[in-house]
Structure formats: C-alpha cells, structure tokens
C-alpha cells in the first residue's frame, strides 16, 4: 500500500504533460504552415518517457555533500524540443508537412485520451478500496 497514489499515476501525469506539449508544438507547426523559413519541431517523446519510467524504479537523484547544495530536481527529464529536420521541398524553406502533422496530432490525441482513461481506471480502483468495496 506504500504506493497508493504512486508510480502509475505519476508516470501517467508525466506522459499527459508531454503529450500536451507535443500537441502545442503541432499547433505551432500547423499555424506556421505558410510562414517562410519556419522549421517544424517536435518533442523527444519516447526517449523521455522511458527515462521517466526508469527514474521511477530507481532513485537517480543527484547526491549532494552539503545540505545547502542545490538539488537539481527533475532537470534531466525536462522535455527536449528539437527541430524535425524534414527535407524542405518548397521555395520558402518551410519544411512543415501538413499530412504528417495532422496524423501526428490524431495519434497524440488518441494516446492522451487512453492515458486519461487509464488514470480514471486506476482512480476508480482506489475509490473502491477507500469505500471498502461498499457502494
């Protein structure tokens, strides 16, 4: 029971944050579909989430030798935004691929919703436990 609200919800929250950020980047890419010179961007998604899952299983905090030393909290799991690096095939050097962005957006939304559903499921189990199985 030590892990009552533990890792699944924490990882889920982290994944939701990442997916929301990814959606924001897709919104940015689509808004700039006609902006000359704009380069499309994305977040390093899978790698980061794997990191977060690993971190949850083993404590990887930085050790300090003095209580007044600053602990960099979660600094390594800060999302990394990168340029997608599509090859631009347009005269204005804009490399946004609208089809790719839209399909990425659908994927992101589906994943987001399914993770929310997972969290809801986890919470309803907890709810059941709290109420001792009674309704």
């Amino acid at each position, binding site marked *: 029971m030590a892990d009552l609200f533990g890792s699944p919800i924490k990882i889920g929250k982290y994944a939701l944050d990442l997916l929301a950020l990814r959606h924001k980047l897709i*919104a940015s890419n*689509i808004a*700039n579909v006609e902006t000359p010179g704009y380069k499309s*961007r994305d977040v390093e998604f899978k790698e980061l989430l794997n990191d977060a899952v690993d971190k949850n299983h083993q404590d990887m905090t930085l050790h300090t030798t003095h209580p007044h030393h600053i602990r960099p909290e979660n600094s390594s799991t800060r999302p990394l935004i990168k340029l997608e690096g599509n090859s631009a095939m347009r005269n204005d050097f804009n490399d946004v691929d609208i089809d790719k962005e839209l399909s990425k957006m659908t994927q992101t939304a589906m994943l987001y*919703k399914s993770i929310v559903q997972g969290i*809801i499921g986890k919470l309803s189990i907890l709810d059941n436990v709290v109420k001792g199985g009674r309704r």
Partner: protein
Amino acid sequence: MGSLFNSIEISASGLSAQRTRMNVISANIANINTTRTEEGGPYRKKEVVFKAVASSKFDDLLSKSEPVPEKVEVVEIKESRTPFKLIYNPSHPDANEQGYVQMPNIELIEEMVDMLSATRAYEANVTVIGTAKSMINKALEISR
C-alpha cells in the same frame, strides 16, 4: 492541461493570420479592374507577410537554446512590385496616347490558388482546436 490551452491560442493566431490573408485576397480580386487609386495609377496587388513569433515570454525563459512553439503573425501587408499589365483599349478614359491602359498587376488564377490554400490552412487550424478541445474534455473526466 495549461499547455493545451496554449495550443488553442497558437491555432487561434493561425486562424486570424489566414483570415487576414483571405481579406487581402478578396481586396485583390475586388480591385482586379481598378485603374484609379488615391496614390495615383492603377491598384497594386497586396500580399501578406507571415512571421513566426515565440508563443509566450515564459517559454522563452524556459528554453533559451531550444526551439520553442511559435505563433504566427501578419507583420506586414506589402504591395507587389511586379509591373502593371498593359491592355489595348483606346476607348477607356484612362488610356494613354497610344491607346494602352495600365491595369492592376493581379492574376486571377494566382489569387484563386492562394484563396484555396488559405482555406485549407484555416481548416487545419480549426481541426487542431477541435482536438485540443476533446483532449481537455477527456482530461476533465478524471475529476468525475
């Protein structure tokens, strides 16, 4: 979820940019035969200039070296410098001694193509807002 509201904001900037572009295109098409303007001479084709701007100061501070999500903004509406078309029409009141009239430098087909691409870009932004909305609604179900 705050990030999702932010993406609605970004798409909204895209909507207003494309709408401005559409306004400029309709002005061009409406003035396709205009031979007199306040500056003198025929109407010049107008073009919008889009620019990507960082979506908020906060994002800037958070990630200085990394690329950040960006809104789109219409920074300028420029006049096209392509030459006017010369049409032979001696009966026109603005014809010169040789009977040629200077007509606006607007190509109807170009405008139509631009209009189509503005419509599509607008629709894409609407779709993004729709998805963000459905994601937010789903997230709200957690609290039920």
